[in-house]
């Protein structure tokens, strides 16, 4: 029943034409630009991206606040991140992203807490700056071991003309130079989480790097210092990555930002190399460090043994033979494990098809891991990718892969209904839709409460999880026998 390449391409073309029929003309025209398929040899995926979502279509996207508080800043564990504005945004994003950390919560770490200014009508009418000042004072009394404060702006802040920068400066001075970072990540800015990443990166540049004495900490640099950039330690991802870098002889001086601390951010300009996992959310600060401090950066991919191997060698190529040998040692050490994992799961997963729709780096980065298990990704798309993401994607996808940017609920449902993949990987909002349809599903933001998936230890878990999703006995039972 498997289609030839030509048939697949024709099916994709027909399918796109079919879903577009549901829209009013103007909308169909706009959505058409976001739907396409990869043609072998092209330098991008033939879709437009990073454009405003259309109203009313049920986009899966979030907002700039989610990109800043939820992704970039929230995981910095020893700072207090104030969700500044009404109670909602902070409440819904409270501890939901599984950024693991080690610390005593409420005392020296604050990652799984929700600090909010809980705006009331009077704050909207008269402004919230006074309240913000008081909040910072109260934080200083009740949470004396906090290492800094960030102000994560929600929608109203930019609309009522509050001056959170002035408040931050004033209070920082008052507390003897404490790091206080105002972030203008109001949810209406930009078109998705993406601008929030950028704004958050810029805030680190302006309010951490530019305001901190580079010799604040007694820190001895070594020739093997690297920083992990763009790993949010979801289910422990950064840890199962860090361990490999350390095993090959590197010294990881900072994690951005999963299980990270402000001291790690401050010391990163002393790194020899920045290794970047989520390009989308942290390329900005990596470029800045390259320009300002001369630190090169390299993208890597720690999903699945093929990509891990290539990435370890790529990272090692920036160092001397000691590290290069270290990389080979690590690769050799884990080969037994990956061989055993593949031997166990590949026969159960070989030839299975997958459709993805995720954020950041995952719509391309995980493809290799599926392929290591003999699976094929037949459709993929980004929640908030830019053209450079789709260009990078061409190195991962096969000819005729269906591509859908900022997919709508309707489109995704129809695509899956027609293509009938063996697995869908997307988010919590999509999970139950597809499971109801009888399609196995894994959440690929939160790892469905499993993980880590990065590194060799993570690959074993990834393989186990994909197998348990696809080969669960329940899928054979969705249709009642008398209905078959």
């Amino acid at each position, binding site marked *: 029943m498997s289609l030839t390449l030509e048939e697949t391409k024709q099916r994709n073309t027909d399918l796109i034409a079919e879903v577009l029929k*549901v*829209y009013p003309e103007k*909308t169909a025209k706009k959505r058409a630009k976001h739907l396409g398929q990869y043609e072998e040899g092209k330098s991008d995926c033939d879709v437009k991206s990073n454009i405003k*979502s259309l*109203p*009313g*279509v*049920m*986009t899966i996207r*979030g*907002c700039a606040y*989610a990109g800043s508080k939820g992704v970039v800043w929230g995981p910095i564990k020893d700072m207090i991140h104030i969700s500044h*504005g*009404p109670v*909602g*945004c902070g*409440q*819904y994003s*409270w*501890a*939901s992203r599984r950024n693991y950390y080690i610390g*005593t919560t409420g*005392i020296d770490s604050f990652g*799984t807490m*929700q*600090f909010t*200014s*809980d705006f009331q009508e009077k704050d909207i009418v008269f402004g919230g700056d006074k*309240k*913000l000042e*008081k909040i910072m004072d109260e934080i200083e*009394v*009740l949470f004396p*071991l906090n290492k800094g404060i960030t102000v994560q702006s*929600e*929608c109203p802040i930019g*609309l009522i003309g509050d001056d959170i920068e002035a408040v931050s400066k004033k209070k920082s001075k008052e507390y003897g130079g404490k790091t206080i970072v105002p972030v203008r990540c109001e949810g*209406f800015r930009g078109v998705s*989480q993406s601008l929030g990443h950028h704004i958050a990166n810029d805030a680190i540049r302006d309010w951490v790097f530019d305001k901190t004495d580079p010799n604040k900490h007694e820190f001895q640099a070594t020739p093997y210092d690297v920083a992990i950039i763009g790993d949010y330690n979801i*289910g*422990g991802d950064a*840890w199962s990555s*860090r361990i490999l870098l350390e095993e090959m002889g590197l010294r*990881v*001086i900072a994690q951005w930002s999963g299980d990270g601390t402000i*001291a790690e951010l401050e010391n990163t300009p002393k790194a020899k190399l920045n290794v970047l996992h989520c390009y989308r959310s942290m390329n900005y600060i990596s470029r800045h460090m390259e320009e300002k401090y001369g630190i090169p950066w390299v993208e890597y991919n720690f999903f699945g043994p093929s990509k891990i191997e290539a990435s370890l060698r790529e990272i090692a190529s920036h160092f001397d033979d000691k590290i290069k040998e270290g990389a080979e040692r690590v690769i050799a050490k884990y080969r037994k494990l990956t061989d*055993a994992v593949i031997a*166990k799961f590949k026969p159960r997963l070989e030839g299975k098809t997958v459709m993805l729709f995720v954020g950041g780096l995952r719509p391309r980065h995980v493809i290799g891991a599926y392929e290591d298990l003999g699976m094929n990704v037949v459709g993929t798309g980004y929640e908030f990718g830019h053209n450079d993401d789709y260009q990078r994607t061409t190195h991962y996808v096969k000819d005729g892969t269906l591509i859908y940017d900022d997919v709508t*609920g309707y489109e995704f*449902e129809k695509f899956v209904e027609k293509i009938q993949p063996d697995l869908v990987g997307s*988010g919590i*909002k999509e999970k*139950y839709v597809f*499971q*109801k*349809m009888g399609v196995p599903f894994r959440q690929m933001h939160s790892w469905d409460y499993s993980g*880590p998936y990065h590194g060799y230890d993570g690959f074993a*878990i990834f393989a186990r999880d994909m197998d348990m999703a696809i080969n669960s006995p329940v899928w054979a039972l969705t*249709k*009642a026998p008398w209905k078959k």
Partner: protein
Amino acid sequence: MSQDAEKIIDHEMLFREPEYVEMFDNKKKNFEFAFPLEKMEEVRDWTKTMEYREKNFAREALTVNPAKACQPLGAVFAAVGFAKTLPFVHGSQGCVAYYRSHFSRHFKEPTSCVSSSMTEDAAVFGGLNNMVDGLANAYNMYKPEMIAVSTTCMAEVIGDDLGAFIRTSKQKGSVPEEYDTPYAHTPAFVGSHITGYDNALKGVLTHFWDKQERVPNESINFIGGFDGNVVGNMAEIRRIFSLFGADHTVVCDPSEVWNTPTDGEFRMYDGGTTKDEVKGALNAKATISFQGFSTEKTNKYIAEKGQEVVALYHPMGIAGTDQFLMEISRLTGKPIPLALEKERGRLMDAIADSSAHIHGKKFALYGDPDLMLGLTGFLLELGAEPVHVLSTNGGDDWAAKVQALFDASPFGAGCHAYPKKDLWHMRSLLFTEPVDLLVGNTYGKYLERDCGVPLVRMGFPIFDRHHHHRFPIWGYEGSLRVLVTILDEIFEALDANTIITAKTDYSYDIIR
């Protein structure tokens, strides 16, 4: 190496392996520049003191770990309660992503809802175009029979006028002129999710009822309010009404949308109150609102239309359910069915069998104001002492009602209601005046960890336990389930506390 293909371990056990533990220690020692352990411990111990509690309660501006959400969440809940209705939230799209995730994490079900995706240009020029296009797109794509509109705080701050925007959209042909688009302004900076529920529900009623003439009949309306157990509770309510044989309408019932089968088909819409039912509900003799604080404005509106409105406050347990049933009986003139009387006796039986384990136990509870009133009443009835009753979205009027319950029971002496407080306040209460059991939503697990008090999960949201929402906590049957849940937790705690071999396990009894 930690992994073995034959025995793959995930985050739970993986990071306890020695190479990871060593890695964590090195990271902390060399790169985190953390405060010394002694300093951390000193501050940690200080946070447990009365001195800290006083400072904590002196807070005027900062909120930490609140037990409430924002208005539009409640508006989406209300919209989902109507047949083939699509919730449409006018404003930024990020909020809608959050509401959908939030509900899906609680119910383990899809939640469909669209946004008008306003961005910076809409902040400057207003969101009219977003409304015009948004309604057209949603109407064509998802074929709802009704679109219920509410707002995020962005639209509220810039002052978008929903009524005018919807009228213009209709003129521009986004949806047909006669198409039903009830709406409500739901500013996030006023009240909480229960306020949003109230506003949105009132918006739907107003949309239909203001065009109608009331012709009173004998039927009764039932309104549940914002409720995390809605799936189980609504089924229980329908069962109770049908046992009475009472002509009734459940106004706003999201229980089926969040309870669809896995059978190969995704149902975006299922069940819910139909338009005809909403229209008919105007003629009812009376409306029973099960959660008065969740329906303050709606109740007032219904009363203005000429109906008797009975506002209950989440009645539970024996006396609470008695009151609910007697109200139905009074309003319908029908006797209380024998089957329900028997259920009452069974609940009594269960309480009599087990109350020795609950009697005199101290409880702390937090959550929505109505749920707190119901639970307080039930606990007092069981001879328990609800010493800390806290609600972030309950005000002074709520606290007075809780106090009245305390005053009416000898077990209420020494108990306190805490309006407009959060879970960081609760932490201080639990350290300075410890209790045996905590009742609250999923976020209470952080208090369980910090204060060592076992948590009984009840309220919204429950993310870390599955399927609780499928079971009722209302009626005698629901109360029985609450009783069992509390007892289970008490027995678990007792077993855990007596499990050490040759030390405490003499009390590790096989019969309790």
